Structures are given as C-alpha cells and as structure tokens.
C-alpha cells in the first residue's frame, strides 16, 4: 500500500493502481473519454490530466496511466488543469458537435462557447472500439490507419472483415455515434438541455426522461 494525497485528502492505495482508479474510488470526479474500466488505459483524450507534485517538481500527468507513488500530492482541479480540459473539450466539440457525451461534459464543465470552425465528424478517435474489439472480444477486426489528420478507425484494407462477428461491441462502447445530441440547432452552440432542470426537451417530448445522466431515452422517443 502507498499513501498519497488527493486534493488535500490523505488516502491509501494499492501499489500498481493508477491515480484515476484511486481518485474515482475515493469519489473524486475526473472526466474521461477514452478510458474504460475494463480496457487498457490509452492516455489519448487528455481530459484526465491532473497535477502531480512528487516533491521535486509539479507536472501534468494523465491520471489514467500514472501509477500511484508514495507521498505524491495530486490535485485534480487546479486552474491550469481546468483551463486545459475545457480547451480540449472545445477542440473535440468542434470536431463532433453532435455527440451527447461531449455536450454533457461541456455542460458539466461550464464550457460556454466553441471558438473554432465547426466540423461534422462522427469519430473522435478515442480508440475505445479498437481496444474493445481486441481485448474483450478477442477479435481485433478494426484498427487505426494513417497518422495526423488522416488517422481513422477501419477494418484492414477497408474491406468487410473476415474476423468481425458483428457483435456490436464497438458500437456499444462508442461514446459518440451511439448517443447523438439533438438539441444543437446552430453550429458552435452548446446544448445544455439535459443538465438543466427546465430542459428544452420538455417542449419537444412532453416528459423529461433524463436530467443528469445520458440515458438516450429522449432520442429513442423522437425516433419512435
């Protein structure tokens, strides 16, 4: 067991666990997108960055990957961290404005405006589906190709995969495609509908299906 401080609270943790696991266990909320309990941490979304003081220097680390060490001081919500997280979320929202996961996170973090030119991509390249397919489904039917702006998730040679069993796990875990936010009316707008107690959904659906969590029910209802 190692002892560390998270936001001033002295906590104990098992050796080998990551800051994110420990922080969540003790109830500290750190936002993530590319992280999933049952998959290898990937460290790509950078939303889980926290400040760690190891006695020598303070630096920003990805909490989903950083192993806890004796005596470190972790701060999960410093100004530097929050400023960066907001900007990263803004970058993601500019890429995928209609993702409910991203829209909800934006409301939670108090993001007010997206200052970049809006795109309409479907994928945020979090890699959850790739890891899900390889690690949990034992298949590895999809993977990343290309680098930089050309990076995308595809099957080998973009043909129908022979090893894909159509299990749908990739779709299940995808934080973007599965849940589409229907509240955004103009580009750059942040919806906020689900997180306020007088949601705009009321006008549309007559009944509030969700307030604080993304259940997706309102979307389904509209489709019906």
């Amino acid at each position, binding site marked *: 067991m190692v002892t560390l401080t998270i936001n001033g609270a002295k906590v104990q943790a098992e050796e080998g666990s990551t800051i994110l696991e420990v922080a969540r266990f003790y109830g500290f909320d750190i936002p993530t997108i590319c992280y999933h309990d049952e998959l290898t941490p990937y460290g*790509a979304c950078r939303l889980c960055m926290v400040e760690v003081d190891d006695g020598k220097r303070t630096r920003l680390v990805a909490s989903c990957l950083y192993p806890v060490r004796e005596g470190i001081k972790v701060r999960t919500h410093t100004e530097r961290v929050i400023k960066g997280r907001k900007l990263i979320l803004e970058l993601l929202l500019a890429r995928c404005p209609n993702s409910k996961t991203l829209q909800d996170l934006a409301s939670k973090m108090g993001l007010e405006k997206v200052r970049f030119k809006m795109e309409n991509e479907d994928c945020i390249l979090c890699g959850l589906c790739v890891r899900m397919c390889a690690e949990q489904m034992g298949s590895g039917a999809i993977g990343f190709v290309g*680098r930089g702006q050309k990076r995308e998730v595809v099957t080998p040679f973009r043909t129908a995969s022979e090893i894909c069993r159509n299990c749908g796990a990739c779709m299940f875990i995808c934080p973007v495609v599965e849940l589409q936010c229907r509240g955004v009316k103009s580009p750059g707008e942040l919806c906020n509908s689900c997180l306020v107690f007088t949601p705009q959904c009321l006008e549309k659906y007559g009944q509030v299906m969700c307030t604080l969590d993304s259940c997706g029910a309102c979307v389904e209802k509209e489709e019906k």
Partner: protein
Amino acid sequence: MKKIRTPEELEALRNSLLQQRDPNKPCVRVCLGTGCRARGSVDVIGAFKDEIKRQGLAIKVDSKQTGCHGFCERGPVVVIGPKEIFYQRVKPRDVPEIVSKTLLNGKVVDRLLYVDPATGKKTLYEYEVPFYKKQRRQILANNGRIDPTNILDYIAVGGYQALAKAITTMSCEEIIDTVEKSGLRGLGGGGFPTGRKWRLCRKAAGDTKFVIGNGDEGDPGAFSDRSLMEANPHSILEGMIIGAYAVGANQGYLYVRAEYPLALKHLQIAIDQAREYGFLGNNIFSSGFDFGIKINRGGGAFVCGESSALVASIEGKMGEPRAKYIHTVERGLWNKPTNLNNVKTWASVPLIINNGADWYAKIGTEKSKGTAIFSLVGKVNNTGLVEVQMGTPLKEIIYDIGGGILGGKKFKAVQTGGPSGGCIPEELLDLPVDFERLTEAGSMMGSGGMIVMDEDTCMVDVARYFLDFLQYESCGKCVPCREGIKRMLEIVTDTTAGRGKEEDLELLQELAETVKDFSLCGLGKTAPNTVLSTLRYFREEYESHVRDKKCPAGICKDLIEYFILEDKCTGCGACLKLCPQQAIQGEPKKLHIINPAKCIRCGICRDACPYEAIITR
C-alpha cells in the same frame, strides 16, 4: 580474417597498417557524402581513378572516398594529402590538371582554391578556411579522413581502442562513472545526462536488456545524423558496444530512416566488418561479452524519432508514442530495460573513454559539455555541417562560420531544433548555444537543425510552414496534438490570408500553451514552440497581419501587391512577356503597370526585371 581478441592484437594491426601506409604518399580524398554526391562527386572520383590508371600512377598515389567534410555549400570537396590542399567545387574536367599539377608536382591549382569572400584571400588548407577555423570538430573529426566502408581506415586512426580499453581494463561501473563525470547529455528535448540514463538502465531489473541508436532524423533541414552515419559508422558502433557492455545489453538496434539509403548501406557494411574482426559477435575481446547490432529501417514517420514511438516501431507495432511514466530504461523494447541514445551521443562515447572524463568536461559550458553539431542551412553563405564547442555564441556560428547572410541581407531570426524548436531573434544573437540557454530562449538543441532566416522571411508564414509539417507528422493519438495543431494551423493560415481577427491571437496563445502542457509525447509538447516563440519575439508581425492586413516581409500572397516603381522602370517589357496572367500593361520604353485584379502574385515579373523596378508592398 582472424578475429581480434586482445588489445595487443589491435595495436599490432594498427601498427602494421601505419607501416604499410606511407604518410607522405599523395592521396586524393573525395567527399562522397550525399551533398557532394548531388553535385556530382561520384563522377569526380571516377575521373580521378581513370586518370590515375591512364597515367599509370596507381603505385604512386592513392585515391579514397570519404564521408561528408561538412562544407556542403562548396561541394564537391576534394582534399589532396599529404599537404591537405583543399579544393572546392571540383568538376571531372579539372581532374587531369589536379593529377598532373598537384599530385605529381605538388603545385596548386589556383582557381579551385576557396576564396574568403570577406578578405578576398585564397586559402590553401582546409583548416584555414573560415568555415572550419572556428569549429571544434571532434565527433566529426575523421569524417573527411577515412573511407567509411573500410574498417582498416577506422582502425588506423585509432578506432576500437576505446572499446578495447573499456572492455579489458574498466568495469561496467567505471565506464558509467566516466560517462557521467564527463557531463555528456542526450539530444532529446531535455538533455538528459547520458551517464545517469546508463546507470538507471544498468540497475533496472532483468537479464535481457537492449540498447538502441536513434538515427531517425526527420526534421526539415537537419542532416547531422545522416552525415555521421554515412561518414563514420564505426564510431557509432564502437560507442554502442561500449554502452551495451556497460548497461549489460546483448542486443542493439539502429533505427535509421529508410530515406537514408547511403547511411543504411554504410552502417550495414560497418556492422559486417566489425563482426568479421570480432568487435561484434561472441566473446568480444575475450571478455565473455556477446553483442550484436541489427538495423531497423524507419517507415518515414517523423514521430518515430520519439523514443517510445521508435520502440513501438521496432516491435512491429504502429509508430505511436506511449506515456513514459515508467521510463524506457525500466520498461522499453518488449518491456525490457532499454537504453536509447542518439547516434551522435553514441559516437561521443569512444572519445570520452579514450581521452578521459576530465578532458571532455573541460569543453563547453558549466552544464553543457562537449560539442554541438548543427546543420547550418537557410539564408546563410556557407551552408553545411558545423561542430562547435557548447557555449559558442549564435553570432559566431552564423557570421564567422556561416559567413553571414546570403546576398548581404539583414538577419531576422534563426530556428534551432527543427520543427520542435523556436525562432530566436536578432537581439539574442549573442546567446551562447547550450541546452539551458536555448530552452530559456524558447527553443531547443534537439536534432541540431539551424535554419537562418533573413529579412525577407515572414515569421507568421514560418509558423504556418512548421505547423503544416507537424499536423501531417503528428501521429494523431492524443487530442491536443492532433486537433490543437490543426486549429493552430487554421488560425495562422487565416492570419496569413488576411482573415485573422484580433481575438484569434489570444486564442492561438492559449491553444499553444495547452498543447504544450497537455500533449502525450515530445512531439506535441514541443510543437507549439514555433508559434510561441514567434508570438513572443515577432508579435508585431502577427498584429500587422491581423490589424493592418499587411505582411511586412512581403511574403503572404493575399496581403501583398506587386507594384512597378516609376523611376526605375525603363519599359523594357521583360515582365510583360513573362506574366502568365497578362496582368501587366505598357508600351515599349514607357512605364508599365500591373493590374492588381489580374495579378496572382507569382513573382515571376520581379525575378525577370533587370532594373529591380518591381517591388511588393
């Protein structure tokens, strides 16, 4: 060939080589580095061989191909021993004259000598040329002396003696102590002390360990690793063998870009020869230490120069970095302790072992020891490979060694460290070059690229160029690097196109800082350096793009207008004939006028005008 098993055998081989080789025998050394090859040095050495054969001089004179001499600007470079007469820009047609005059009679061919543009004086010897005078060439010392494809040449200049000394007389700890005491530092962003890295790797748990030589030099404008690999591959191998012995590794990898075919060829020849002589393989110098080196060719991704991406690439995975909270010296290649150094760092090791830590520690500044190698390029008179003592002021490198700015123009900025580095302005020209000073100035040592820019360079455009390179070369794994660089490029491109808004600059600054803080690997962490440094030193240029919609340097096409000066135009019509858009009107011998609506700002007219009557504004 009998394998060499003891230092005595090596010494005996060297002595017999020195006896066989008459130091007074005339010897032609032709540079066959990539730069001189491009200028036709293959034909030059061919001509020398033919001429020597034709005149039946094969017994009297030697001819030899060497690696890069560094002075690429004046290639093909030929040095005639034993007097070391330095000829530059040699053409095959000059060869018969050189053979009959210099080789046979010891006379000098005057017109091939280097003329110092500052004094107009001709210089006879390589060391007299101002380009070399202020350098301290120790890693590159043998580049122009030895044939890189012949191990005997390397042994003749004292090669593999450091290895013999290290393996037979020093313990692993002693070697690491020596390297640590010397103050040698790695060439990654932070300049991590090499000795400390070795020690960590030695202490790391596990029997299987690896060493890696990083020769994946991908920066635009940098070629120091390439030149070293092409010209003196054995020095890299020797350093790696010593390092492997010290940390306890039995397998080494050299990761070299596939775009360096000559370096790959020379390294492979060197590895085969070293194996033949017993410097690689089993039981090196009868010590029981086994070591082999494999070459891995990089697939052309800039990010694979980053250590963890390089490791992934060797493993056969996608060349993507991972978080290094557990360092590669503990868990690197195939999760085994791995010691990775740049090829230049490896090549410094034999020097330190031979001359001692104190000798090395005396060179350089307080915290940065030894020498730094720069690929001096851009708007400078003498482009080429430069090795200077740490702490040499930038001014000395650019003006004394580089010979000042091309065409007598005014200096504007110098970019060090490749796309990850920053632009250093004129007021910091006295800056002594070392790890700390460069970092403080917002740049870095890195790969050792040094791009000089003159007054005709638009700094916003420079930032745009490097961002464009980086957005293509980012691996795309983490959000700040992939999306952040794209958005920075978007803002900077808008600025150069006159669509910029004032609040964009604030956003650019904020974005650059976040990308620097939040990115996963060194590529993303250093990617905003060009933006941050140009915003810091050349903010007024951004502001004039945004506020006045003007490009002060006259580069950004959307913000400039070509204009013919009334008092200089003679009406010769040279511009009119060449304009692809028929945008120029005018009658012979009368003032010509450019129609801005038709002009596409290609600049052909300005280049064509013999009277410099066309300007941008």
